[in-house]
C-alpha cells in the first residue's frame, strides 16, 4: 500500500463522516450493482481462495484424493526444509541487492535528465524500453544466451582484454547475479516516476537557494532529497513487493530448476515446483501464506521506518 492509498483511505473516511455516517438506501442498492463483479472476484478469485488455502495448508492434498487433515505438519516441515531456506535466502538476497541498486540508477539518471536537458522524451523512451520488455520470456531467453559460455557477455569481456569462457548462468556463484543485473536493467519505470516527482519541486526553491549562494550539493541534500522522499518511498515499497514475486526470469534462466545448485531457486519458483511439479498442494498453500505474511510484514516495516526518513510537505 502506498502513501497515496493511505491518504485516499483517510479521505474516504472523512467523506463518510461528513455525510453523517448514514448512507442512503438508494446508494446502497446502486453500489451493490456496481460492485457485484468486484465482490464476486473477492469471494471467488482473491480473498476466498486465500482463505481456502489457509485450510489447505493444514492438509495434504495432491488433487486426486481429497485433502487429508495433517494439522501443523506442513508448517513444521518448513523448519527442516533446506530448499525452502535456500529459496528464502535467494529471494531476500535478490530483493536486498537489486532494489537499492535499481533505484539508485533510476534516481541518478532522473537527476541527470531533469536539469533542463534537451531530448528528454527520447531518453525517457529509450530508458523505459527495458522495463517494457524486461518481464517477458523473450528477454529472459536473451539473458540466458548472453551469459552463456559463448555468449555476448564473454565476447565483450574478450574485447576489453578479459578472457573468459565460463558460463555465468551455470556457475552457482554468479547465476543469481545475472538475474539481479536483469532487474537493475529495468530501471526505466522507477526513473519515470522520479522524473515526475522532480517536476513537482517548485523551481523557486532552487532559485532562492542559489541566490543565497548554495552549491549544487547543498541544493540536492536540502531541497531535492527531502522533497523527493515520498516518491523514493513509493518506489521502494512497490519494487520490494514486485521483487518478492519475481518468477519468469528465474524460471527461464534456470530452465525451471532454480539451478545450478539451487542458486536461483526463487521463492515463487519453489512454490511452483512443489504445487505444480510435485502436486503437494497443501505444502504449496502453506508456502503461499508464508509469502503473504512476509510481504505484509516487510511492507509494514517499510511504513514504520518511513516515519523516520520520509518528509511530508503538509
Amino acid at each position, binding site marked *: 500500500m502506498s502513501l497515496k492509498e493511505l491518504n*485516499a483511505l483517510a479521505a474516504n473516511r472523512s467523506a463518510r463522516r461528513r455525510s453523517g455516517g448514514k448512507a442512503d438506501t438508494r446508494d446502497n442498492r446502486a453500489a451493490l450493482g456496481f460492485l457485484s463483479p468486484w465482490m464476486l472476484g473477492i469471494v471467488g478469485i482473491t480473498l476466498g*481462495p486465500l482463505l481456502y488455502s489457509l485450510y489447505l495448508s493444514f492438509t495434504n492434498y495432491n488433487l486426486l484424493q481429497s485433502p487429508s487433515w495433517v494439522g501443523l505438519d506442513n508448517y513444521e516441515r518448513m523448519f527442516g526444509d533446506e530448499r525452502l531456506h535456500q529459496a528464502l535466502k535467494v529471494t531476500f538476497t535478490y530483493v536486498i541487492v537489486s532494489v537499492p541498486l535499481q533505484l539508485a540508477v533510476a534516481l541518478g539518471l532522473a537527476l541527470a535528465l531533469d536539469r533542463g536537458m534537451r531530448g528528454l522524451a527520447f531518453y525517457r523512451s529509450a530508458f523505459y524500453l527495458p522495463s517494457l520488455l524486461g518481464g517477458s520470456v523473450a528477454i529472459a531467453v536473451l539473458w540466458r544466451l548472453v551469459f552463456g559460455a559463448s555468449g555476448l557477455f564473454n565476447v565483450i569481456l574478450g574485447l576489453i582484454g578479459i578472457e573468459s569462457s565460463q558460463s555465468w548462468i551455470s556457475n552457482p556463484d554468479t547465476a543469481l547475479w545475472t538475474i539481479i543485473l536483469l532487474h537493475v536493467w529495468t530501471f526505466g519505470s522507477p526513473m519515470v516516476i522520479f522524473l515526475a516527482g522532480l517536476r513537482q519541486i517548485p523551481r523557486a526553491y532552487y532559485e532562492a537557494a542559489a541566490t543565497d549562494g548554495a552549491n549544487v550539493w547543498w541544493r540536492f541534500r536540502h531541497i531535492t532529497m527531502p522533497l523527493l522522499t515520498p516518491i523514493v518511498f513509493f518506489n521502494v515499497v512497490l519494487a520490494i513487493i514486485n521483487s518478492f514475486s519475481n518468477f519468469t526470469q528465474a524460471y527461464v534462466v534456470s530452465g525451471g530448476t532454480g539451478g545450478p545448485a539451487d542458486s536461483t531457486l526463487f521463492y515463487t519458483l519453489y512454490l511452483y515446483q512443489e504445487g505444480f511439479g510435485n502436486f503437494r498442494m497443501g505444502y504449496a498453500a502453506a508456502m503461499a501464506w508464508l509469502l503473504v505474511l512476509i510481504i505484509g510484514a516487510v511492507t509494514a516495516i517499510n511504513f514504520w521506518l518511513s516515519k523516520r526518513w520520509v518528509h511530508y510537505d503538509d
Partner: protein
Amino acid sequence: MTDLATRSQNVSATPVPGAAVTPRGRSGWSRAKSVLRHSAMLAVVGITLYPILWMIASSFRPDGQIFGTASIIPEQWDVSNYVDGWNALGEPFGVYLMNSAIIVLGSIIGNLVSCSMAAYAFARLRFRFQGPAFALMLVTIMVPIHAVIVPQYILFSKLGLVNSFIPLILPKLLATDAFFIFLMVQFIRGLPRELDEAARIDGAGHFRTFFQILLPLMKPALATTAIFTFIWTWNDFFSQLVYLTDPAKYTVPVALRSFIDAQSGSSYGALFAMSVVSIVPLILAFAFGQKYLVRGIATTGGK
C-alpha cells in the same frame, strides 16, 4: 510529457546541442558541457539497449555466426530464421500470437468494464461498509497471484477449465486487478461532482450518470488501464504456464519456453527470431500509447 514516442524520436534523434541555439545564445563552454552531457547520456542509452539490438541482429544471422560476435549490425538480412522459427513448434507461431491476443483482448475488456464500475462505486457512492470494503480493495493490491494460484487452480480444475482461457480472463472480468480500481478512483475524485449533481437534477440515475457523464471523461484513465493490461498480460508467464499445458493452447511466452526445451540448443537463430516477433506487439503498444503509459506511471507513482 505528452509527446508520442515516434514524434519525440524524430525530434531528438540527433540531440546535438550545436544544431539549435537557445534564444539567449550560448557560450562555448556551456555548449561543450552540453555536448559532453549528451555524449555521456547517449553512451548510457547505447549500453542499456545493446542486448536488445544484439538480439535483433542475431535473429538475422545463421546459427554458426550468432555467438562470438558483439556486432549489432547484421551482415545480411536473412529471414530464414523467421521462417524456421515460425514453423518450429507443433503449431505455426501465429497460433500462439492469436492465443495471446485473445487473452489480452479479453483481459483489457474485463479490466475496463469491471474496474471502472467498482471505481465509480468507491468514488461516488455512499454505502454501508464502504470504508472496510475500500481498505480490503487496497490490501488485495499487495497479494501476488502466486499466493492464490493453488486454490484458484484447484477451483478451475474442478470446473474442468484448465487448458481454456477462462481462468486467465475471468479474473479480469471480476475486477481482481485492484490496482486499476485504485487508479480510476483517484481519477474520478478529480472530476467535479457538479457534473453528477447536474445529471441527477436532470433525472439521470446512477447508471446513466456513470455511462453517459463519467465514463466519457475517464478516457485517460481507461487508456492507461488498457495499455498496462496489454503489457502485463502479454508478458504474463506464471499463470499461463500453470493453466495452459495443451500445446495448441500455448500463448507466446509459454511457446517460447517450450522452444528452449524442444530445440535444446540447436537453433538459436530461430529462437531469437521468435523472441523478436514476441516483443513487436509490446513495442507497438508502447509507441502508440506512450502518452498514457507515462502519465499512468507518473500519476500513480508521483504526487
